[in-house]
């Protein structure tokens, strides 16, 4: 399953709930304000590292750039993708859950 998270983890529990329910092998794509969950050295960093043990985490790069960040600002092993990459993920995973 592909999970999309569009809310900042400082604003809602969406990211935490998503990590709690995502099954091994899932993908989590952080979009819109969800990108704040990918930042280096935050109180969510540990949750990201734990989630990465079973899920692949992606960030939508245009949303990163729109907020003044680049790939240097986000945690290791989080991949940046563009809208074409978003479409590819939706092709790969037959169900997409928006948080």
């Amino acid at each position, binding site marked *: 399953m592909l999970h999309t998270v569009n809310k900042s983890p400082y604003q809602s529990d969406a990211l935490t709930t998503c990590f709690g329910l995502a099954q091994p092998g899932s993908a989590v794509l952080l979009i819109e304000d969800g990108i704040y969950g990918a930042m280096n050295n935050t109180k969510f960093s540990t949750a990201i590292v734990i989630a990465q043990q079973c899920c692949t985490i992606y960030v939508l790069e245009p949303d990163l750039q729109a907020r003044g960040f680049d790939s240097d600002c986000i945690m290791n092993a989080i991949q940046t993708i563009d809208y*074409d990459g978003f479409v590819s993920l939706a*092709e790969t995973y*037959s169900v997409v859950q928006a948080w």
Partner: protein
Amino acid sequence: MKFALMINQGPYTHQASDTAYHFACAVLKAGHEVFRIFFYHDGVNNATRMTTPPQDDRHVIDRWSELASQHKLDLVVCVAAAQRRGILDEDEARRHGKDGDNLAPGFRISGLGQLIEAGIEADRFLVFGN
């Protein structure tokens, strides 16, 4: 592959409509079909042609209308959500005795059956906004 999208938030306040638009463009560019885009809840506010943003800002509504015209997209607005928010086509305006209608070109007003059908017919169903 057939994609269906649902948009649940209005333009300019939330990013959902922008994200869905860029995603829809990428879907079409990849050679897939967009079976339907369903506008629900505050998402129906993406369908008023009275929207007049500053000239140097993106025109979220016109952008949908143009994409629909270019690719023959089916943009469906939920009737109940639309009426609550004052989004009316000519028939609905007449039926409710209103002095004008405001549905943007390329959109049509229909019901939740269209949402269910999109979920059945499409290979992928994505929700934008909550």
